[in-house]
Protein backbone atom coordinates (compact mmCIF):
# COMPACT_ATOMS: atom_id res chain seq x y z
CA UNK A 1 0.00 0.00 0.00
CA UNK A 2 1.34 3.43 -0.94
CA UNK A 3 2.35 5.59 2.01
CA UNK A 4 0.55 8.90 2.45
CA UNK A 5 2.87 11.82 1.69
CA UNK A 6 2.82 15.29 3.28
CA UNK A 7 1.48 16.57 -0.05
CA UNK A 8 -1.49 14.27 0.28
CA UNK A 9 -2.22 15.60 3.76
CA UNK A 10 -2.13 19.12 2.35
CA UNK A 11 -4.55 18.07 -0.37
CA UNK A 12 -6.85 16.79 2.36
CA UNK A 13 -6.78 20.32 3.76
CA UNK A 14 -7.72 21.72 0.36
CA UNK A 15 -10.45 19.13 0.05
CA UNK A 16 -11.96 20.03 3.43
CA UNK A 17 -12.01 23.67 2.39
CA UNK A 18 -13.49 22.76 -0.97
CA UNK A 19 -10.64 24.56 -2.72
CA UNK A 20 -9.28 21.88 -5.02
CA UNK A 21 -9.60 21.58 -8.75
CA UNK A 22 -11.77 18.77 -10.00
CA UNK A 23 -8.78 16.58 -10.86
CA UNK A 24 -7.10 17.23 -7.50
CA UNK A 25 -10.35 16.41 -5.73
CA UNK A 26 -10.79 13.14 -7.60
CA UNK A 27 -7.21 12.21 -6.93
CA UNK A 28 -7.34 12.86 -3.19
CA UNK A 29 -10.75 11.22 -2.85
CA UNK A 30 -9.21 8.05 -4.27
CA UNK A 31 -6.26 8.29 -1.88
CA UNK A 32 -8.49 8.89 1.14
CA UNK A 33 -10.58 5.87 0.24
CA UNK A 34 -7.44 3.71 0.37
CA UNK A 35 -5.75 5.17 3.45
CA UNK A 36 -6.92 4.87 7.05
CA UNK A 37 -4.48 7.54 8.17
CA UNK A 38 -5.77 10.01 5.59
CA UNK A 39 -9.35 9.23 6.63
CA UNK A 40 -8.45 9.76 10.26
CA UNK A 41 -6.56 12.93 9.48
CA UNK A 42 -9.50 14.28 7.48
CA UNK A 43 -11.78 13.69 10.44
CA UNK A 44 -9.46 15.50 12.84
CA UNK A 45 -8.96 18.41 10.50
CA UNK A 46 -12.65 18.74 9.75
CA UNK A 47 -13.38 18.64 13.48
CA UNK A 48 -10.83 21.41 14.01
CA UNK A 49 -12.34 23.55 11.27
CA UNK A 50 -15.87 22.92 12.56
CA UNK A 51 -14.81 23.85 16.07
CA UNK A 52 -13.50 27.21 14.91
CA UNK A 53 -16.49 27.87 12.68
CA UNK A 54 -19.11 26.90 15.21
CA UNK A 55 -17.99 29.07 18.12
CA UNK A 56 -19.67 32.48 17.95
CA UNK A 57 -17.48 33.62 20.83
CA UNK A 58 -14.52 33.63 18.44
CA UNK A 59 -16.08 36.51 16.55
CA UNK A 60 -15.59 39.90 18.13
CA UNK A 61 -18.15 42.48 17.05
CA UNK A 62 -17.07 46.06 16.58
CA UNK A 63 -18.28 48.14 19.53
CA UNK A 64 -21.15 50.48 18.69
CA UNK A 65 -19.08 53.41 19.94
CA UNK A 66 -16.43 52.60 17.33
CA UNK A 67 -19.02 52.46 14.56
CA UNK A 68 -20.45 55.79 15.66
CA UNK A 69 -17.02 57.36 15.91
CA UNK A 70 -16.04 56.25 12.40
CA UNK A 71 -19.26 57.51 10.87
CA UNK A 72 -18.79 60.86 12.61
CA UNK A 73 -15.31 61.14 11.20
CA UNK A 74 -16.60 60.36 7.73
CA UNK A 75 -19.05 63.24 8.18
CA UNK A 76 -16.17 65.51 9.13
CA UNK A 77 -14.22 64.48 6.02
CA UNK A 78 -17.28 65.12 3.85
CA UNK A 79 -17.69 68.54 5.35
CA UNK A 80 -14.04 69.42 4.80
CA UNK A 81 -14.15 68.22 1.23
CA UNK A 82 -17.28 70.16 0.53
CA UNK A 83 -15.53 73.36 1.59
CA UNK A 84 -12.52 72.30 -0.43
CA UNK A 85 -14.61 72.01 -3.57
CA UNK A 86 -15.69 75.60 -3.23
CA UNK A 87 -12.07 76.72 -3.00
CA UNK A 88 -11.12 74.62 -6.01
CA UNK A 89 -13.74 76.21 -8.17
CA UNK A 90 -11.94 79.48 -7.69
CA UNK A 91 -8.42 78.23 -8.21
CA UNK A 92 -8.63 75.61 -10.94
CA UNK A 93 -9.17 78.20 -13.64
CA UNK A 94 -5.54 79.20 -13.22
CA UNK A 95 -4.28 75.74 -13.91
CA UNK A 96 -3.23 74.38 -17.26
CA UNK A 97 -3.33 70.86 -18.60
CA UNK A 98 -0.13 68.88 -18.49
CA UNK A 99 1.23 65.52 -17.58
CA UNK A 100 0.52 66.68 -14.06
CA UNK A 101 -3.13 67.15 -14.75
CA UNK A 102 -4.17 64.77 -12.02
CA UNK A 103 -2.37 66.86 -9.47
CA UNK A 104 -3.18 70.16 -11.00
CA UNK A 105 -6.87 69.46 -11.31
CA UNK A 106 -7.03 69.21 -7.57
CA UNK A 107 -4.13 71.29 -6.31
CA UNK A 108 -5.30 71.91 -2.79
CA UNK A 109 -6.07 68.34 -2.18
CA UNK A 110 -2.78 67.35 -3.69
CA UNK A 111 -0.89 69.77 -1.53
CA UNK A 112 -2.82 68.65 1.50
CA UNK A 113 -2.12 65.04 0.75
CA UNK A 114 1.54 65.58 0.39
CA UNK A 115 1.63 67.66 3.50
CA UNK A 116 1.66 64.37 5.30
CA UNK A 117 4.76 63.46 3.38
CA UNK A 118 6.25 66.80 4.14
CA UNK A 119 5.95 66.00 7.77
CA UNK A 120 8.45 63.22 7.29
CA UNK A 121 11.28 65.62 7.75
CA UNK A 122 13.15 67.71 10.22
CA UNK A 123 11.27 70.47 11.99
CA UNK A 124 9.21 70.90 8.89
CA UNK A 125 7.25 73.87 10.04
CA UNK A 126 10.44 75.86 10.36
CA UNK A 127 12.09 74.93 7.10
CA UNK A 128 12.62 77.54 4.43
CA UNK A 129 13.53 77.38 0.80
CA UNK A 130 17.01 78.43 -0.26
CA UNK A 131 17.16 82.09 -1.18
CA UNK A 132 18.13 83.76 -4.45
CA UNK A 133 21.83 83.90 -3.65
CA UNK A 134 22.32 80.17 -3.91
CA UNK A 135 24.47 78.91 -6.70
CA UNK A 136 22.15 76.84 -8.85
CA UNK A 137 24.89 75.49 -11.05
CA UNK A 138 26.05 73.16 -8.33
CA UNK A 139 25.67 69.54 -9.24
CA UNK A 140 25.10 68.67 -5.65
CA UNK A 141 21.65 70.12 -5.44
CA UNK A 142 18.48 69.12 -3.72
CA UNK A 143 16.95 67.50 -6.79
CA UNK A 144 19.96 65.50 -7.81
CA UNK A 145 20.53 64.51 -4.20
CA UNK A 146 17.03 63.11 -4.08
CA UNK A 147 17.71 61.08 -7.18
CA UNK A 148 21.10 59.96 -5.94
CA UNK A 149 19.58 59.00 -2.64
CA UNK A 150 16.93 57.01 -4.42
CA UNK A 151 19.51 55.18 -6.52
CA UNK A 152 21.66 54.49 -3.49
CA UNK A 153 18.71 53.07 -1.65
CA UNK A 154 17.72 50.92 -4.57
CA UNK A 155 21.24 49.60 -4.96
CA UNK A 156 21.66 49.13 -1.23
CA UNK A 157 24.79 51.23 -1.13
CA UNK A 158 23.52 54.31 0.71
CA UNK A 159 25.68 55.60 3.52
CA UNK A 160 23.15 55.83 6.22
CA UNK A 161 22.92 57.34 9.65
CA UNK A 162 19.89 55.22 10.27
CA UNK A 163 18.00 52.58 8.43
CA UNK A 164 14.86 51.24 9.91
CA UNK A 165 11.57 49.69 8.99
CA UNK A 166 10.04 50.83 12.24
CA UNK A 167 8.49 54.23 12.57
CA UNK A 168 9.07 54.29 16.33
CA UNK A 169 12.80 53.83 15.82
CA UNK A 170 12.76 56.72 13.39
CA UNK A 171 11.01 58.88 15.96
CA UNK A 172 13.51 57.83 18.64
CA UNK A 173 16.37 58.70 16.33
CA UNK A 174 15.22 62.28 15.95
CA UNK A 175 14.57 62.51 19.64
CA UNK A 176 18.11 61.31 20.39
CA UNK A 177 19.40 64.08 18.14
CA UNK A 178 17.30 66.64 20.01
CA UNK A 179 15.52 67.46 16.78
CA UNK A 180 12.08 68.93 16.89
CA UNK A 181 10.58 66.51 14.46
CA UNK A 182 7.21 64.96 13.88
CA UNK A 183 7.11 61.71 11.99
CA UNK A 184 3.85 61.04 10.26
CA UNK A 185 3.30 58.45 7.61
CA UNK A 186 1.72 59.69 4.42
CA UNK A 187 -1.64 58.34 3.41
CA UNK A 188 -0.63 56.04 0.66
CA UNK A 189 -1.99 52.76 -0.57
CA UNK A 190 1.23 50.92 0.00
CA UNK A 191 3.29 49.21 2.62
CA UNK A 192 5.84 51.16 4.59
CA UNK A 193 9.14 49.49 3.79
CA UNK A 194 11.50 51.65 5.70
CA UNK A 195 13.03 55.00 6.29
CA UNK A 196 16.60 56.11 6.01
CA UNK A 197 18.41 59.15 7.24
CA UNK A 198 21.50 60.24 5.35
CA UNK A 199 23.66 62.75 7.10
CA UNK A 200 26.20 64.92 5.35
CA UNK A 201 28.32 67.76 6.63
CA UNK A 202 25.74 70.33 5.68
CA UNK A 203 22.54 68.52 5.14
CA UNK A 204 20.36 65.69 6.29
CA UNK A 205 17.87 63.88 4.13
CA UNK A 206 15.10 61.60 5.23
CA UNK A 207 13.84 59.16 2.69
CA UNK A 208 10.78 57.05 3.15
CA UNK A 209 10.27 54.02 0.98
CA UNK A 210 6.98 52.37 0.25
CA UNK A 211 6.17 49.24 -1.62
CA UNK A 212 3.00 49.21 -3.62
CA UNK A 213 1.06 46.18 -4.70
CA UNK A 214 3.07 46.11 -7.92
CA UNK A 215 6.31 45.94 -5.94
CA UNK A 216 7.48 49.33 -7.02
CA UNK A 217 9.29 51.72 -4.80
CA UNK A 218 8.62 55.27 -3.92
CA UNK A 219 11.28 57.32 -2.26
CA UNK A 220 10.47 60.62 -0.69
CA UNK A 221 13.16 62.97 0.44
CA UNK A 222 13.21 65.86 2.76
CA UNK A 223 15.96 67.98 4.16
CA UNK A 224 16.57 70.45 6.88
CA UNK A 225 17.31 73.92 5.61
CA UNK A 226 17.16 75.88 8.79
CA UNK A 227 20.54 76.20 10.44
CA UNK A 228 22.38 74.56 7.58
CA UNK A 229 25.48 76.48 6.68
CA UNK A 230 25.48 75.46 3.06
CA UNK A 231 22.10 74.06 2.20
CA UNK A 232 21.69 72.14 -0.98
CA UNK A 233 20.52 74.41 -3.76
CA UNK A 234 17.78 73.64 -6.23
CA UNK A 235 17.60 74.16 -9.97
CA UNK A 236 16.24 77.43 -11.32
CA UNK A 237 13.36 75.92 -13.20
CA UNK A 238 12.36 73.81 -10.23
CA UNK A 239 12.54 76.80 -8.01
CA UNK A 240 10.50 79.05 -10.25
CA UNK A 241 7.87 76.36 -10.68
CA UNK A 242 7.45 75.52 -7.05
CA UNK A 243 7.67 79.15 -5.96
CA UNK A 244 4.52 79.79 -7.96
CA UNK A 245 2.82 76.98 -6.13
CA UNK A 246 3.13 74.59 -9.05
CA UNK A 247 4.57 71.14 -9.38
CA UNK A 248 7.80 70.35 -11.11
CA UNK A 249 7.95 67.05 -12.87
CA UNK A 250 10.86 65.54 -14.65
CA UNK A 251 11.10 62.23 -16.40
CA UNK A 252 14.63 61.30 -15.48
CA UNK A 253 14.71 58.24 -17.65
CA UNK A 254 12.27 55.60 -18.75
CA UNK A 255 12.03 54.20 -15.27
CA UNK A 256 12.33 57.15 -12.96
CA UNK A 257 10.18 60.18 -12.28
CA UNK A 258 11.16 63.15 -10.21
CA UNK A 259 8.60 65.44 -8.64
CA UNK A 260 9.12 68.60 -6.65
CA UNK A 261 6.62 70.94 -5.13
CA UNK A 262 6.37 73.50 -2.41
CA UNK A 263 4.05 73.86 0.51
CA UNK A 264 4.43 77.19 2.24
CA UNK A 265 8.18 77.40 2.77
CA UNK A 266 8.90 73.73 2.47
CA UNK A 267 10.29 72.03 -0.59
CA UNK A 268 9.39 68.41 -1.06
CA UNK A 269 10.38 65.79 -3.56
CA UNK A 270 9.25 62.38 -4.67
CA UNK A 271 11.39 60.08 -6.72
CA UNK A 272 9.64 57.06 -8.09
CA UNK A 273 9.75 54.37 -10.71
CA UNK A 274 6.02 54.81 -11.13
CA UNK A 275 4.70 57.05 -13.92
CA UNK A 276 3.34 60.16 -12.34
CA UNK A 277 -0.21 59.53 -13.51
CA UNK A 278 -0.20 56.24 -11.64
CA UNK A 279 1.67 57.76 -8.75
CA UNK A 280 -1.15 60.20 -8.20
CA UNK A 281 -3.59 57.35 -7.78
CA UNK A 282 -1.65 55.97 -4.87
CA UNK A 283 -2.23 58.99 -2.72
CA UNK A 284 -5.40 60.14 -1.17
CA UNK A 285 -6.45 63.74 -1.21
CA UNK A 286 -7.60 65.73 1.71
CA UNK A 287 -7.93 69.27 2.77
CA UNK A 288 -5.22 70.95 4.80
Amino acid at each position, binding site marked *: MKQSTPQMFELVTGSIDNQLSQSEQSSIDAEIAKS*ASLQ*FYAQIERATKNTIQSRPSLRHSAPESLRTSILSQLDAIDQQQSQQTENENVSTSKMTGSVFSMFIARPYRAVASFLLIIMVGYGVTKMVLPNESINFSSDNNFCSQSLVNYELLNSGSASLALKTNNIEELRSYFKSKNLNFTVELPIIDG*EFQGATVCEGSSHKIVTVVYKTKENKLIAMSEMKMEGDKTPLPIYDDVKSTVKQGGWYWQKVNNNTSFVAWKKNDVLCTVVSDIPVEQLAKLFS*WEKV
Partner: protein
Amino acid sequence: MLNEEQRKQFEKEAIPHMDAIYNYAQRMCNDPDEAEDLVQETFLKAYRFFDKFEIGTNCKAWLFRILKNTFINKYRKDTKEPEKVDYGSIEEFYELIRDTNSNSINLEDTIFENVFDDEVSTALQRLPDEFRTVIILCDIEGMTYEEIAEFLDCPIGTVRSRLHRARNVLATTLLEYAKSKGFAKDS
Protein backbone atom coordinates in the same frame (compact mmCIF):
# COMPACT_ATOMS: atom_id res chain seq x y z
CA MET B 1 -13.41 63.24 -3.50
CA LEU B 2 -16.57 61.48 -2.47
CA ASN B 3 -19.97 62.82 -3.30
CA GLU B 4 -23.19 61.97 -1.56
CA GLU B 5 -23.77 58.97 -3.77
CA GLN B 6 -20.30 57.61 -3.06
CA ARG B 7 -20.81 58.09 0.66
CA LYS B 8 -23.95 55.99 0.45
CA GLN B 9 -22.06 53.44 -1.58
CA PHE B 10 -19.29 53.34 1.02
CA GLU B 11 -21.79 52.74 3.78
CA LYS B 12 -23.39 50.01 1.74
CA GLU B 13 -20.18 48.31 0.58
CA ALA B 14 -17.64 48.88 3.34
CA ILE B 15 -19.33 49.55 6.67
CA PRO B 16 -21.02 46.10 6.84
CA HIS B 17 -17.53 44.53 7.00
CA MET B 18 -16.60 46.41 10.16
CA ASP B 19 -17.20 43.42 12.42
CA ALA B 20 -14.93 41.22 10.30
CA ILE B 21 -12.24 43.88 10.18
CA TYR B 22 -12.52 44.47 13.91
CA ASN B 23 -12.42 40.77 14.65
CA TYR B 24 -9.23 40.33 12.66
CA ALA B 25 -7.67 43.45 14.19
CA GLN B 26 -8.55 42.24 17.67
CA ARG B 27 -7.07 38.81 16.97
CA MET B 28 -3.88 40.30 15.61
CA CYS B 29 -3.40 43.03 18.24
CA ASN B 30 -4.93 41.12 21.15
CA ASP B 31 -5.80 44.51 22.60
CA PRO B 32 -9.24 46.11 22.16
CA ASP B 33 -7.93 49.69 22.18
CA GLU B 34 -5.27 49.01 19.59
CA ALA B 35 -7.79 47.08 17.52
CA GLU B 36 -10.17 50.03 17.58
CA ASP B 37 -7.41 52.42 16.50
CA LEU B 38 -6.47 50.09 13.69
CA VAL B 39 -10.04 49.69 12.48
CA GLN B 40 -10.64 53.41 12.64
CA GLU B 41 -7.52 54.14 10.64
CA THR B 42 -8.43 51.44 8.13
CA PHE B 43 -11.91 52.80 7.46
CA LEU B 44 -10.80 56.41 7.22
CA LYS B 45 -8.09 55.41 4.79
CA ALA B 46 -10.56 53.31 2.83
CA TYR B 47 -12.94 56.24 2.66
CA ARG B 48 -10.24 58.52 1.32
CA PHE B 49 -9.33 55.91 -1.27
CA PHE B 50 -12.86 54.88 -2.06
CA ASP B 51 -12.85 56.54 -5.46
CA LYS B 52 -10.09 54.05 -6.37
CA PHE B 53 -12.23 51.09 -5.35
CA GLU B 54 -13.98 49.37 -8.21
CA ILE B 55 -17.60 48.85 -7.30
CA GLY B 56 -18.59 45.25 -7.76
CA THR B 57 -15.20 43.88 -6.79
CA ASN B 58 -14.50 42.33 -3.41
CA CYS B 59 -14.78 45.15 -0.90
CA LYS B 60 -14.05 42.92 2.07
CA ALA B 61 -10.77 41.76 0.54
CA TRP B 62 -9.93 45.37 -0.31
CA LEU B 63 -10.55 46.46 3.28
CA PHE B 64 -8.44 43.60 4.60
CA ARG B 65 -5.58 44.71 2.37
CA ILE B 66 -5.77 48.24 3.73
CA LEU B 67 -5.95 46.81 7.24
CA LYS B 68 -2.86 44.72 6.60
CA ASN B 69 -0.86 47.66 5.32
CA THR B 70 -1.99 49.80 8.23
CA PHE B 71 -1.15 47.04 10.69
CA ILE B 72 2.29 46.48 9.20
CA ASN B 73 3.01 50.19 9.08
CA LYS B 74 2.10 50.56 12.73
CA TYR B 75 3.53 47.41 14.20
CA ARG B 76 6.30 46.62 11.77
CA LYS B 77 9.03 46.14 14.31
CA ASP B 78 8.80 42.41 14.75
CA THR B 79 7.36 41.34 11.46
CA LYS B 80 10.74 40.66 9.86
CA GLU B 81 11.40 38.05 12.50
CA PRO B 82 10.57 34.60 11.21
CA GLU B 83 7.72 33.02 13.07
CA LYS B 84 8.68 30.33 15.49
CA VAL B 85 6.48 27.38 14.78
CA ASP B 86 6.30 24.49 17.16
CA TYR B 87 7.03 21.80 14.64
CA GLY B 88 7.40 19.37 17.53
CA SER B 89 3.70 19.65 18.00
CA ILE B 90 3.10 18.77 14.40
CA GLU B 91 5.25 15.66 14.72
CA GLU B 92 3.42 14.73 17.90
CA PHE B 93 0.20 15.17 16.02
CA TYR B 94 1.22 12.67 13.39
CA GLU B 95 2.35 10.31 16.13
CA LEU B 96 -1.08 10.70 17.60
CA ILE B 97 -2.68 9.95 14.28
CA ARG B 98 -0.63 6.82 13.84
CA ASP B 99 -1.23 5.57 17.36
CA THR B 100 -4.89 6.31 17.86
CA ASN B 101 -7.57 3.82 17.00
CA SER B 102 -9.73 5.74 14.60
CA ASN B 103 -12.71 3.44 15.02
CA SER B 104 -13.02 4.02 18.73
CA ILE B 105 -14.90 7.33 18.57
CA ASN B 106 -16.74 9.50 16.13
CA LEU B 107 -14.04 12.11 16.01
CA GLU B 108 -15.68 14.62 13.79
CA ASP B 109 -18.77 15.09 15.90
CA THR B 110 -17.49 14.74 19.39
CA ILE B 111 -13.79 15.09 19.91
CA PHE B 112 -13.65 18.83 20.62
CA GLU B 113 -17.20 19.13 21.86
CA ASN B 114 -16.21 19.46 25.50
CA VAL B 115 -13.46 21.99 24.91
CA PHE B 116 -14.52 25.36 26.32
CA ASP B 117 -14.84 28.43 24.14
CA ASP B 118 -12.09 30.25 25.99
CA GLU B 119 -9.77 27.28 25.47
CA VAL B 120 -10.45 27.37 21.74
CA SER B 121 -9.86 31.11 21.77
CA THR B 122 -6.59 30.68 23.68
CA ALA B 123 -5.45 27.96 21.29
CA LEU B 124 -6.16 30.26 18.36
CA GLN B 125 -4.40 33.17 20.02
CA ARG B 126 -1.31 31.07 20.72
CA LEU B 127 -0.81 30.30 17.06
CA PRO B 128 2.00 32.18 15.31
CA ASP B 129 0.68 35.21 13.39
CA GLU B 130 1.00 33.60 9.98
CA PHE B 131 -0.99 30.56 11.09
CA ARG B 132 -3.59 32.53 13.01
CA THR B 133 -4.13 34.75 9.99
CA VAL B 134 -5.00 31.92 7.62
CA ILE B 135 -7.30 30.28 10.15
CA ILE B 136 -9.19 33.51 10.75
CA LEU B 137 -9.47 34.34 7.08
CA CYS B 138 -10.47 30.84 5.98
CA ASP B 139 -12.48 29.42 8.86
CA ILE B 140 -13.99 32.52 10.41
CA GLU B 141 -14.22 34.91 7.47
CA GLY B 142 -14.84 32.24 4.86
CA MET B 143 -12.36 33.61 2.34
CA THR B 144 -11.23 31.47 -0.56
CA TYR B 145 -7.61 30.40 -0.93
CA GLU B 146 -7.32 32.81 -3.83
CA GLU B 147 -8.50 35.73 -1.70
CA ILE B 148 -6.18 34.77 1.12
CA ALA B 149 -3.26 34.41 -1.29
CA GLU B 150 -4.01 37.87 -2.64
CA PHE B 151 -4.16 39.25 0.88
CA LEU B 152 -0.90 37.59 1.93
CA ASP B 153 0.79 38.18 -1.40
CA CYS B 154 1.81 34.53 -1.64
CA PRO B 155 1.00 31.51 -3.84
CA ILE B 156 -2.19 29.53 -3.22
CA GLY B 157 -0.07 26.49 -2.39
CA THR B 158 1.47 28.40 0.50
CA VAL B 159 -1.97 29.22 1.83
CA ARG B 160 -2.95 25.56 1.75
CA SER B 161 0.29 24.50 3.36
CA ARG B 162 -0.06 27.08 6.15
CA LEU B 163 -3.65 26.10 6.78
CA HIS B 164 -2.65 22.46 6.96
CA ARG B 165 0.10 23.18 9.48
CA ALA B 166 -2.00 25.68 11.42
CA ARG B 167 -4.81 23.18 11.86
CA ASN B 168 -2.31 20.54 12.97
CA VAL B 169 -0.98 22.81 15.69
CA LEU B 170 -4.50 23.83 16.64
CA ALA B 171 -5.75 20.25 16.68
CA THR B 172 -2.83 19.18 18.85
CA THR B 173 -3.64 21.88 21.41
CA LEU B 174 -7.34 21.08 21.34
CA LEU B 175 -6.61 17.39 21.74
CA GLU B 176 -4.55 18.20 24.81
CA TYR B 177 -7.51 20.08 26.26
CA ALA B 178 -9.80 17.19 25.34
CA LYS B 179 -7.42 14.73 26.97
CA SER B 180 -7.25 16.79 30.14
CA LYS B 181 -11.01 16.42 30.39
CA GLY B 182 -10.69 12.68 29.96
CA PHE B 183 -12.47 12.70 26.63
CA ALA B 184 -9.67 11.71 24.30
CA LYS B 185 -7.43 8.92 25.48
CA ASP B 186 -3.67 8.76 25.42
CA SER B 187 -2.51 6.11 23.05
